[in-house]
C-alpha cells in the first residue's frame, strides 16, 4: 500500500472485534475454514428441510387417491424440494468443500478475497432464509423448480409465491457468482510455488471448472429471472404470449443455465471421488490428464445440450436431432471418467472404509444414471419419458446417487482434517449401506412407474392406474434413506463427544492438505510448501514409489506427535464444528486477514433490498441504505489493521479489488 494512505479514517461504528471465541467470532469471521464450516452446517440444515419435504411427498404418494396434503401444498413441496436441494444443499455443500479444501490443497493461507467470501456466505444464507420465509406467508413457490413461464406470469400465479422464488434465486445467484470469482482467482493466483496446472489435484481442477461454469451460466438465469420479475412486478411483456412474448424463450434461457447447472452439481462430487479412490486404492488416479480433460469437455459441451430438456416443445426435427447428437456426445467424456475410476481401483490395495464405500457407490450409481440418460437423449424415447417418473428416477440417480454420495464421501474423508477425529466407522458403514439400499429402493422403481405412464408433479393418481404398489416401495425406500441420515446425525454427535486423535494423515493421503496438522491451524501452512510432483505429499512420503527425488519433507509436515505446535492451545476447546480454535494470531506471527462485520451487513442489506421489492417503496429505500452502508464500510475499512508490515504471501486484496466482484 502506498505511502499516501488512500483511505482516510472512517468513523467506524462497528470496530473489529478481537475475540476468537463465541458466536461473535463466527459472525464476523473471514477465515475460509470457518466460512466453509458455516456453509456446510447451513446446507445440512437445508438438507433436512428438503428431505422432510420429500418425505411428506412420498407419504402422500404412497397410496392412490390420497388426501394427506392438498394439491397446492404438494406443488409447494416439490418446488421447494427441488429448489432447496439444488441451490441450498448440493451447491453450498460444494461451496463448503471449496472453501475448506481449495486453500489447503493448493497450499494457500486463505482465499483471494476473504471478506468477499464472507459476503457470499451471508448472502447465500439470507437468500435461503428468504425463500423459506415464504412458508410463513403461506406463499411458498409452487411452480416447479424451473418455474416455466407463463404459468409463473401474473394471471396464472397471483400470490407472492413465484416472486419469493424469483428474488430468492437472484440473491443466491449473486452469492454464487461472488464466490465463483473468488475461487477462480484463488486457484489461479494463490497456488503454492511449483504447482503448475497439471500438478493440481483433480478436485481443484473440478472446482475451477465449476466456478467457470457458474460465472458463465448464472448471468443467463439472472437475466431470465429479472425479465420474469419485471413481467410480474412492472407489467412488462417478456413472456406474455398475448403481446407476442414466447413462453418457450424462458425455457431456452432457463436450460441454457440449467444444463451447466447440472454439471455444477455433479463435478465437485466427481472431484471428491477422484481424490478418495486413489487414496483408498493406494494408487494414483488413472489417466489424470484424461480425467481433467474429460471434466473440462463435459463442462464445455454442457453449454450445447440445453435443448434436450425441451425435446417435446416442438423445436422441429433438425434442432431435436442436433441436440440429441450433442447430448450423446457428452456421454463420451463421462464414460472416460468412469473407466478411469475403475482403472484407478484396478491393481490397487483397496481399503473399504466409509469414504471409499461412498465413492464406489457414486461410481456404481452414476453408471445407472448415465445409462438412463442415454435413453432419453434419444427424442423418440424421450417423447414418452419426458416429464414422467422415469426422468425423476434418472436425475435422482445422478444427483442423489451421484452428487450426494460423492459429497458424503468428502464429508467422511476430510472430517479428520476438519476436526482432528474420524467419524465413527461402524455407524458410518450403517449409514452408507442404509442410504445405498434405501436409495435404490426409492428411485429404481421410479423407472418402472415412469414407463408405466406416471407423470411427475402430480399430487395424486387414481387407484386403477396400477401405480400404487411401486409408489409404496418408493416411500419405504425414502424412509430408509431418512433413517440413514438419522444415523449420520447420531454419528456426528457421538464423534463430537470423543477425544480428538489429531491424526494429521489418517488415510495415508496424497495431497497437500494431509501434510499439515489436524485440525488445521488457523494459518493452514506454517510455511508455504513448494510443489514438485502431482500428488506431492505422496511423493514426499514415498519418493521411491514414484521415482521421485527424495527430499526434505516440506516444512508444513506434521511434527512428531506431542510436539508443541501441533496441539491446539486448549485441547478441550477444539470445536467439533470443524474449525480450529487456535490461539490468537499473534502467537504464530503469520499475518491473516482481519475479521469484519461489513460483509454481513452488506449481504443482509442486499437480501433485504431484494425482498423489499415485493413490498413498499420506503422499505426498499431503507434496505438500500443498509446495503450501501455495508459496502461503504467495507471499502473504508482497511483490509487489515494495523497494515501489514511485511509482504503478505497470500497477496490479500485491497478494498477495491474485492469491490469489483460485487
Amino acid at each position, binding site marked *: *500500500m502506498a505511502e499516501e494512505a488512500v483511505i482516510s479514517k472512517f468513523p467506524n461504528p462497528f470496530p473489529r472485534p478481537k475475540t476468537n471465541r463465541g458466536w461473535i467470532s463466527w459472525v464476523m469471521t473471514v477465515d475460509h475454514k470457518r466460512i466453509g464450516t458455516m456453509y456446510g452446517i447451513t446446507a445440512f440444515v437445508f438438507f433436512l428441510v428438503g428431505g422432510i419435504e420429500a418425505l411428506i411427498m412420498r407419504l402422500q404418494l404412497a397410496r392412490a387417491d390420497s388426501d394427506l396434503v392438498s394439491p397446492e401444498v404438494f406443488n409447494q413441496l416439490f418446488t421447494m424440494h427441488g429448489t432447496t436441494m439444488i441451490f441450498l444443499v448440493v451447491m453450498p455443500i460444494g461451496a463448503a468443500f471449496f472453501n475448506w479444501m481449495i486453500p489447503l490443497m493448493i497450499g494457500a493461507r486463505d482465499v483471494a478475497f476473504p471478506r468477499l467470501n464472507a459476503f457470499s456466505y451471508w448472502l447465500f444464507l439470507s437468500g435461503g432464509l428468504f425463500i423459506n420465509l415464504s412458508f410463513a406467508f403461506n406463499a411458498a413457490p409452487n411452480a416447479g423448480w424451473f418455474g416455466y413461464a407463463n404459468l409463473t406470469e401474473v394471471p396464472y400465479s397471483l400470490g407472492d409465491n413465484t416472486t419469493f422464488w424469483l428474488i430468492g434465486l437472484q440473491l443466491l445467484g449473486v452469492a454464487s457468482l461472488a464466490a465463483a470469482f473468488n475461487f477462480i482467482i484463488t486457484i489461479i493466483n494463490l497456488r503454492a510455488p511449483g504447482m503448475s496446472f497439471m500438478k493440481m489435484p483433480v478436485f481443484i481442477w473440478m472446482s475451477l471448472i465449476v466456478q467457470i461454469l457458474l460465472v458463465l451460466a448464472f448471468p443467463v438465469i439472472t*437475466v431470465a429471472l429479472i425479465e420474469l420479475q419485471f413481467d410480474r412486478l412492472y407489467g412488462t411483456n417478456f413472456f406474455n404470449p398475448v403481446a407476442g412474448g414466447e413462453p418457450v424463450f424462458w425455457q431456452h434461457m432457463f436450460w441454457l443455465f440449467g444444463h451447466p447447472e447440472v454439471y455444477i452439481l455433479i463435478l465437485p462430487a466427481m472431484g471428491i471421488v477422484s481424490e478418495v479412490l486413489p487414496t483408498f486404492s493406494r494408487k494414483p488416479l488413472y489417466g489424470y490428464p484424461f480425467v481433467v480433460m474429460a471434466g473440462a469437455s463435459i463442462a464445455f459441451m454442457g453449454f450445447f445440450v440445453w435443448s434436450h430438456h425441451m425435446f417435446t416443445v416442438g423445436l422441429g426435427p433438425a434442432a431435436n436431432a442436433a441436440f440429441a447428437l450433442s447430448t450423446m456426445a457428452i456421454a463420451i467424456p463421462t464414460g472416460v471418467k468412469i473407466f478411469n475410476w475403475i482403472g484407478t481401483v484396478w491393481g490397487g490395495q483397496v481399503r473399504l472404509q466409509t469414504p471409499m464405500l461412498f465413492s464406489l457407490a457414486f461410481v456404481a450409481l452414476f453408471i445407472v444414471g448415465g445409462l438412463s440418460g442415454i435413453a432419453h437423449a434419444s427424442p423418440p424415447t424421450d417423447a414418452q419419458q419426458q416429464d414422467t417418473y422415469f426422468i425423476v428416477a434418472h436425475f435422482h440417480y445422478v444427483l442423489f446417487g451421484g452428487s450426494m454420495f460423492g459429497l458424503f464421501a468428502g464429508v467422511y474423508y476430510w472430517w479428520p482434517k476438519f476436526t482432528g477425529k474420524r467419524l465413527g466407522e461402524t455407524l458410518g458403514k450403517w449409514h452408507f449401506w442404509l442410504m445405498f439400499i434405501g436409495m435404490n429402493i426409492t428411485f429404481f422403481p421410479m423407472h418402472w412407474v415412469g414407463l408405466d405412464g406416471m407423470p411427475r408433479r402430480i399430487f395424486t393418481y387414481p387407484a386403477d392406474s396400477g401405480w400404487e404398489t411401486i409408489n409404496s416401495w418408493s416411500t419405504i425406500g425414502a424412509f430408509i434413506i431418512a433413517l440413514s441420515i438419522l444415523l449420520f446425525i447420531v454419528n456426528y454427535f457421538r464423534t463430537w463427544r470423543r477425544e480428538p486423535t489429531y491424526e494429521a494423515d489418517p488415510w495415508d493421503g496424497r495431497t497437500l492438505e494431509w501434510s499439515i496438522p489436524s485440525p488445521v491451524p488457523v494459518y493452514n501452512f506454517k510455511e508455504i510448501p513448494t510443489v514438485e510432483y502431482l500428488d506431492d505429499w505422496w511423493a514426499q512420503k514415498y519418493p521411491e514409489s514414484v521415482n521421485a527425488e527424495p527430499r526434505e519433507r516440506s516444512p508444513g509436515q506434521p511434527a512428531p506427535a506431542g510436539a508443541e505446535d501441533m496441539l491446539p492451545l486448549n485441547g478441550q476447546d477444539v470445536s467439533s464444528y470443524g474449525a480450529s480454535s487456535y490461539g490468537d494470531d499473534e502467537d504464530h506471527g503469520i499475518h491473516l486477514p482481519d475479521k469484519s462485520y461489513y460483509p454481513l451487513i452488506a449481504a443482509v442489506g442486499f437480501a433485504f433490498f431484494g425482498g423489499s421489492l415485493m413490498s413498499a417503496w420506503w422499505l426498499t429505500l431503507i434496505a438500500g441504505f443498509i446495503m450501501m452502508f455495508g459496502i*461503504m464500510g467495507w471499502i*473504508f475499512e482497511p483490509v487489515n489493521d494495523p497494515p501489514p508490515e511485511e509482504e503478505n504471501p497470500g497477496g490479500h486484496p485491497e478494498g477495491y479489488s474485492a469491490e*469489483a466482484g460485487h
Partner: protein
Amino acid sequence: MWTFLGSECMFFGSLIATFLVYRNQSTTGPFPDEIIDVPITTVSTFVLLMSSLAMVLALNAVQRNQANLGRFWILMTALLGTIFLGFQAFEFNEFFNEGLTPRVNLFGTTFFVLTGFHGAHVTVGVIWLLVMAGVITPKGLSAWTLLGAVLGAYAILVGILGLLDVIRNLSDVGAVIFIAAGAVVMVAAGLKHFSIPTKLNVASQAGNLEVTALYWHFVDIVWIVIFTVVYLVSANDSIETSEAIISGLHGGG
C-alpha cells in the same frame, strides 16, 4: 476482473439475445420506425466513445504520476458518462411521451430493459470514477465526502424514480425536493473535496484505475453492440415487418 467481465458478457449477451428474439414480434405499436431517432443517439454514442478516450488519457496520466491531469481526465470521463446518461434520460422521456412504455408492447419491454440495464452500468461506472477521482487527492478520499456524494446521488435517484412514477407514492413535489437536496449535498461534497490541487504520488493507484478503466471500456463496447443492434439494425422495423414475421412464424409452424 476478467472473470467478472466474462460474466457480464453473458449477462448482456442474454439481454441482447432477448431483444433479437423478440425483434419484430410486437403485436401493437409504437414500432421502432415511428420512434427511434438515430442521429441523436449517434451523438450520445460519440460522447460515450469520447469518454473511453478520456479514460485512456486518465490512466496514462496516472501511470505517469500526473495527479492533476489524471484527476481532470477521470472527471472528464465521468462528465461524458453523465452526459450520455442525460441523453438516455431525455430519450426515455421522449419515448414515454410518444406512448412507448415497457408495458405497451414487446419492443418497449425489451428496449427499456436492455438500455436501462446498460444505463445502470454506466451509472455504476460514473460513481466508481468519482470514487477514483477522490482517491487520488492529497488526503485520500474522505469518507465524509464520499458519504455526502453517495447520499446526494441516492436522493437524486429516488427523486427521478418518483418523477417517473416508478415509486408511486412519492408526489412530484417530494421528488423535486429529493433531487434538489441531493444535488446540493453532492455539489457541497465535491467543492469541499476537489478544491485542493497539489502534486502527489498517484502512480500506486494505477492498478486500481486500470480495473476501473477495464470496466468502463467494457460498458462502452457493450453500448456499441446495443447501438448496432437496437438503433442501426432495428430502426426501420415497422408494423409491416412485424406482421410479416408474426404470420411467417405461425404459418410455417
